[in-house]
């Protein structure tokens, strides 16, 4: 127990913070949450943006504050770091499973040719419709087998 509250409670509260665009993934699943530390009653939560211009960052900061308000009585600083640069390789395996179940094809390992599977029928021959999808982190595909249009989380 630290003066501001219990760090285990803080971590649990942070695990309830999801990405506003992809609500099945927590900021930990996505690799946005980088570090949590406390000095006395001053808590620092360190996050990193997925893309330089990610418009969800302000909402994520507000959601973190709101999630911590019940478990931390001291001050909360949310630090944003650019280094090391975020990569989809930080996404948890659990996160990738949740993403596929949600209908978004998860990213493969970076540096390898992207093997995109249709999240609906698992066909391995989807066709790229657009390199840019509904958010900066996704591209738009359509399945050649079942005809399902879907987003693919780009491996970067």
């Amino acid at each position, binding site marked *: 127990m630290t003066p501001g509250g219990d760090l285990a409670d803080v971590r649990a509260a942070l695990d309830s913070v999801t990405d506003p665009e992809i609500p099945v993934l927590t900021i930990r699943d996505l690799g946005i949450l980088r570090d949590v530390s406390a000095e006395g009653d001053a808590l620092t939560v360190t996050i990193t*943006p997925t*893309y*330089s*211009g*990610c*418009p969800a960052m302000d909402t994520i900061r507000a959601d973190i504050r709101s999630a911590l308000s019940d478990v931390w009585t001291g001050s909360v600083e949310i630090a944003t*770091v*650019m*280094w*090391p*640069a*975020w990569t989809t390789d930080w996404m948890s395996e659990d996160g990738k499973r949740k993403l596929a179940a949600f209908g978004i094809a998860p990213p493969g390992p970076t540096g390898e040719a992207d093997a995109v599977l249709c999240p609906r029928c698992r066909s391995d021959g989807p066709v790229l*419709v*657009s*390199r*840019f*999808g*509904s958010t*900066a982190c996704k591209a*738009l595909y359509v399945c050649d087998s079942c005809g399902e249009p879907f987003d693919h989380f*780009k491996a*970067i």
Partner: protein
Amino acid sequence: MTTSTADHVTYLVRHADDCLVLAQRLGEWSSRAPDLEEDIALTNTALDLLGQARSLYTMASEREGGGRTEDDFAYFRTEREFSNLLLVEQPNGDFGLTMARQLFFDAYQLSLWESLSTSSERTLAGIAAKAVKETRYHFRHSSAWVIRLGDGTAESHDRMQAGIDALWRFTGELHAGDELDRAIAASGFGADPAGFAEAWDARIDKVLGEATLHRPEDAFQRTGGRTGVHTEHLGLLLAEMQVLQRTYPGLVW
């Protein structure tokens, strides 16, 4: 060679201005692109560039001592105070011209970020290491379009070539470099764009070759952006971008 804090700020603001002005231009395509997917692609690219601009303005502001905010840089400077490249302020024209502009800039910016990711300044290296991934993606996108249009119908070929030809006179400025660039490069803080020319030529020649387009003859090259001497188009762009903050200073959503 030693460089001052003011030099660092000037250098950061140059590159931030390139990103901001091009983001504003691409944003003008919103709801007007040839198809819905492209509408999203152009505005996504704009968003990446806007994010890069914000990171650089914020860093410049911190260097300066926090007197000016990123909004001050964007909304309360005049045309002569903007130091962006002339290429990025050129009007959108048709889709071919927009893609020619994007290809030229992406091929340059790729070398810039690659180079800055080894900056002795950790914050700048971090910004660059993140941005290079985004720019690599932009370059793939613009290359694909230039090839598709160049190697497409007679109409698309001619319009793509016209776009390449019209903007060629602004490409020399990408690698011109000046005293500040050389001093900044020597100090390890940044990079001299003169060093990017070879990689740029190779990238452009490869794409133009695949696109069955020809590389224009090297002719007179316009410069002046880095010292605030712009083409007539920047003033109009800034007027639209800044009107709300100029009219109601400090207004927030």
